[in-house]
């Protein structure tokens, strides 16, 4: 069941058809839409036409994209057909709800063809155009593509930039942007220079409005997100959950170390904002960081209700049935008088939207909340996310890029207890099930 029960999902099938020149952040947005919807348990998948093209033609030069290059045109058309075919199969066989067709779709004729095919298959198209003539934004995207696109892997960077710019001009020659005089019948959203102006036309379902709402919160500038748990707390030492305890001595040490740790990876001239929960241990952890801070109630730890302040042994003794139920379905289990992971995800919605809106943010919060946030950024399935291992005294750095998110784990050299509990035991400590490790390289 979706987290935000989008009503009658099974009756609605939507295809977000991307429109726009290369380097307008289309792939980044496609990835984000898919990630967000999957996080809400609405099945969603992106189909990148470029990668279908690469199966036939790897690393072509700009000439390949010329309107008069018949071989190129032929290959590109085939790629679109393959992507559409796979998408329709996915809709029908996997019961897909929202497909994203990640391609430039720059001409009106092409969009018309796609629309007809989708309607024939009872899928509603929603066009999403990223229109951009701001050079700074375009150059940023080009740099990102140059380093991450398979089209330019191993290619001389200077050549890559030149060739890519040339490729863009090839697309520009045939580009017909969406506009209100010719496309007023279509359901579309048009972003002009990210969000200097946004035009929304004929939104027809709640689910579409929800996708548009998310898109409006996006920006495509490069940015970094940092995640950290609070430093080790006295409750952690005693194996108790919840509460509002102070940091332990080692926890305070982590807090003291944090500014240096952060500054090593973030140049001084860059902006950073620190977000904490309203609980003491996160604020104590943030106290030496000389950056603007915000306190969010929505970042408070999962409320363990009647079990707040107990150890897992005590919970097992006092509420044996609950203890078992939680291990069986940790995502859905709601503590008596408290919350479940699903509840936490619902209250994190404003945080996610605000996060997408902002630039560099360091979040200092709690184990369960971080699991949910990490699951969002890394597309971790619902049933796995409550079991993710997120150790204390470790800074997690996330760099979202067009095709993936780069994770770096920075371990502070300060020992801390483990608060990880494996299924079926009351003992704490990280087992060796690699499935629940978070991604990325460890730096110490």
């Amino acid at each position, binding site marked *: 069941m979706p987290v935000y029960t*989008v009503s*009658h999902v099974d009756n609605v099938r939507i295809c977000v058809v991307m429109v726009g020149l290369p380097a307008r952040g289309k792939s980044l947005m496609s990835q984000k839409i898919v990630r967000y919807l999957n996080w809400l348990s609405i099945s969603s998948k992106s189909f990148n036409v470029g990668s279908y093209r690469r199966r036939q033609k790897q690393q072509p030069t700009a000439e390949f994209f010329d309107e008069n290059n018949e071989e190129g045109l032929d290959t590109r058309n085939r790629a679109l057909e393959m992507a559409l075919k796979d998408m329709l199969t996915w809709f029908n066989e996997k019961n897909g709800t929202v497909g994203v067709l990640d391609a430039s779709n720059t001409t009106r004729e092409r969009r018309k063809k796609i629309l007809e095919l989708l309607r024939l298959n009872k899928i509603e198209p929603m066009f999403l155009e990223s229109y951009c003539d701001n050079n700074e934004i375009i150059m940023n995207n080009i740099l990102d593509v140059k380093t991450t696109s398979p089209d330019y892997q191993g290619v001389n960077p200077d050549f890559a930039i030149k060739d890519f710019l040339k490729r863009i001009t090839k697309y520009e020659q045939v580009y017909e942007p969406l506009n209100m005089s010719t496309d007023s019948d279509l359901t579309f959203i048009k972003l002009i220079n990210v969000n200097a*102006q946004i035009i929304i*036309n004929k939104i027809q379902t709640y689910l579409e409005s929800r996708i548009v709402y998310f898109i409006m919160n996006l920006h495509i500038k490069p940015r970094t997100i940092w995640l950290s748990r609070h430093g080790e707390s006295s409750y952690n030492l005693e194996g108790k959950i919840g509460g509002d305890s102070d940091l332990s001595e080692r926890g305070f040490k982590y807090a003291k170390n944090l500014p240096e740790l952060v500054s090593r990876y973030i140049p001084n001239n860059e902006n950073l904002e620190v977000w904490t929960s309203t609980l003491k241990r996160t604020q*104590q952890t943030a*106290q030496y960081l000389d*950056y603007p801070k915000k306190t969010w*109630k929505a970042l408070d730890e999962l409320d363990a209700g009647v079990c707040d*302040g107990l150890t897992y042994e005590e919970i097992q003794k006092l509420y044996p049935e609950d203890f078992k139920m939680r291990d069986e379905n940790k995502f859905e289990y709601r503590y008596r008088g408290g919350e479940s992971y699903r509840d936490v995800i619902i209250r994190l*919605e404003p945080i996610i939207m605000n996060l997408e809106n902002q630039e560099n943010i360091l979040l200092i919060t709690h184990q369960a909340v971080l699991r949910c946030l990490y699951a969002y950024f890394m597309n971790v399935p619902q049933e796995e996310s409550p079991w993710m291992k997120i150790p204390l005294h470790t800074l997690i750095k996330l760099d979202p890029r067009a095709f993936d998110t780069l994770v770096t784990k920075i371990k502070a050299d300060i020992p801390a207890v483990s608060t990880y509990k494996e299924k079926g035991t009351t003992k704490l400590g990280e087992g060796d099930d690699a499935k629940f490790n978070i991604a990325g390289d460890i730096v110490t």
Partner: protein
Amino acid sequence: MPENIVTESSGRSEPLGDDTSIQPPQQPGNYMARVKSRWSNPFSESHNDADDKKISGGSGENIERDLKKRRISNSDFDAIHQEVSSDFISPAQLYSTESGRLFHAGQLCIALCGLPARGKTHLSVSLCRYLRWLGVKAKIFHLGDYRRSYCEKKNISQTFWNPLENANEREEIVNECISDIASYFENDKGQVVIYDAINALSKDRLDFHSLLTEKDVKVLFIESIVTDERLLHKNVSDASKSPDYENWDPEKATENYISRIKIISPIYQEMNEPELTYIKFINFGENIVINNDKFGFLVKKIVFFLMNSRIKSGSVFFARCSNNKLKFKSDPPLDEKGSEYFKKLNKTLLDYISKSKGDNFYQNIPIKSASKNEKQPPIGFDGQHENDFVVWTSTRLRTIQASQSFTKLGIKTRERTQLTQKNPGDVEGLTDEEIKEKYPEDYEKHQQDPYHHRYGRAESYHDLAVKIEPLILEMERMSGDILIIADETVIRVFYGYLMACSCNEIPFLEFPQNEIVQIQYNAYSNIAKRITIEGVDP
């Protein structure tokens, strides 16, 4: 630390402790478990919507007495224009903060703008309803109210002024309204103000913008533009319901209203100020243009609402499922008594609608052969036309069967999982006395906060409120009539949304079996009516 300690403008915050000395915890091993709940206790302070008397929090008896004094007897009244106290907790609020403000979104003034008959008042009221439901402290200031009260005071019979004339009087009225707006922000912990006025001239808009910006309030303009003649015609014919035309002959009122539009149209300047943040809301949501938005989350949430907002012609009707004491998890087919009940419900409602619409409009709906395997068109298209009629039921077998009497008439019926009754959990089937005996602690907590408290494995009303958000927006998308057949617990929450009830009232609203509740949309406030189903026990 409350959310308001660090405002967006204050830059760096003070470190909590002394930079040089690290303090280990004072008393190892003795920490208070979390005592602060996500909710400040809604019954701990007085509320403006209750009697002036302070409601005491402690003993169950007092609470019971005070609850009865609450607005229950008067819940047919839409409270959207009522002041709420600063510790008011909204039905779908996700958590409460000490500052009373949410999302670090600062203070926002939404200034409406547009010619008469563009649905500005309806938009102000429905937007305020949604924001307040989410927990944002919001209030509407209708400039028209200020004009009316000014005229009354000065004994002027004129109902309307040309924006280019009567400059002094106009200024006086506008200033009074703006000073009230400023006071709401400064003194009443207000987060959002909706300023409902025509704002015809660019100069006035720029002045208003700089005036509020000086006070650290962000200004968002929403301009309502209607190019669809049909919509315009409908709005004009609704004009006689405006407070300006109390005791007027409807025809004369419409005439007068049209003359107003004629005066203003030539001087009205459409919004095109690139430096301002504005939303053009065209033909009630058909097309939306957002310009220069730099205010973040809250504005996006507003656009989200606008995408789902429509001009209303119909009503929302609520009816109970057939009366039974079934177990939450059981799902038997409809019994004979239920079938009888639904026949009566069906007849009562359709007669009522036909009467009010003047003809048997629903009989003109073509009957489509509904095949099981055929994919239904997306739900979002439901109810878009003003003569549409849609029925929602839960996914329980008996309500699905019951709704077939509507399906046979060609009326669209939809099953919605969110309409399932509030899960009673461990206390299912127990009387109050039994609960008190079996779960004394829980019982006490429930008395203190019946809206948020959950018994073991149960859902709370708050859970329902969060769960039905998509349905609320789909309801907002509809122009025509909708009948919602659901359990009383679910109706309470929907009703709470439409009539702006607080979370203190919702658990106590009453919807007897033998009544259909009608909520009629009206630009200024919704109207609740009860229609008796003859021959059914309450």
